[in-house]
């Protein structure tokens, strides 16, 4: 069964159950082939994982068909969702034993003296000043949850795990982190350190 890129969503919604089932089977094959390429060589991924990720990917895609806007190929859009399913699960397994208490305690360590060394970015006077302003802003302008979320990210903890531990939603957690970054940036700005200064200093 060959689909043009245009008729994937329509076929997956087909009322003809034979046609719809064939489309789902083909979507499964496309997703599994892609996942196999993307996750090739990972020792933490088995055939059973690939099956699970594919199945969950199909379910997620069918539930989100209305969100496909046709600005890319349907299969590219679908692969992105399947990859999100797979990576989210793989990250969750790696961090499943971390508790909220541990995350919050780690966040509070950001305010401890010496946690951020004066010369963390180098001994240059401007950089030491930047660190001093940043350290003060982290202590005074952020909430404990914002500090915990930032520390989680610095430890490379999955965002979904941070969201789950903080008992919030993805969008609320992202907004909380965005607000934290804006607050810190504003404090640097008030100290005469602009976004351009930062970008120049770090060759962004």
């Amino acid at each position, binding site marked *: 069964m060959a689909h043009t890129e245009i008729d994937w969503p329509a076929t997956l919604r087909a009322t003809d159950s034979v046609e719809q089932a064939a489309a789902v089977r083909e979507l499964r094959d496309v997703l599994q082939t892609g996942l196999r390429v993307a996750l090739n060589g990972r020792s933490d991924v088995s055939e059973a994982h690939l099956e699970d990720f594919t199945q969950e990917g199909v379910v997620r895609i069918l539930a989100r068909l209305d969100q496909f806007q046709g600005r890319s190929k349907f299969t590219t859009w679908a692969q992105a969702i399947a990859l999100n399913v797979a990576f989210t699960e793989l990250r969750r397994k790696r961090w499943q034993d971390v508790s909220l208490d541990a995350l919050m305690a780690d966040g509070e360590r950001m305010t401890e003296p010496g946690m951020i060394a004066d010369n963390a970015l180098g001994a240059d006077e401007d950089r030491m000043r930047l660190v001093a302003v940043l350290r003060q802003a982290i202590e005074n302008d952020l909430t404990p949850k914002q500090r915990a979320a930032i520390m989680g990210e610095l430890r490379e903890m999955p965002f979904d795990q941070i969201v789950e531990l903080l008992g919030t939603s993805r969008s609320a957690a992202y907004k909380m982190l965005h607000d934290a970054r804006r607050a810190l940036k504003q404090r640097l700005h008030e100290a005469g350190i602009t*976004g351009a200064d930062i970008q120049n200093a770090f060759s962004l």
Partner: protein
Amino acid sequence: MKQEEERLTSGQVGSIVKMLGLTTDREFNCTECLQNVSEFAESQLAGKPVTEIIARVEQHLALCPECSEEYDALRKILQAGQ
């Protein structure tokens, strides 16, 4: 959680500062990035001009290591299919 790390490394402090440098008032979150990353990936591979949506995806990927990891995997799939 690695409590044995007594202080943030230079790389970690640098990461915070770099994120501040990339922060803008209006940004895509991870969900919005996922909704648009397929268009971004195809545009990048085809060398198409940057639209506002593409630029926002690119900015989010620079800030978010997880979405960036998934984008790299998507790119790998697309390249394998070319």
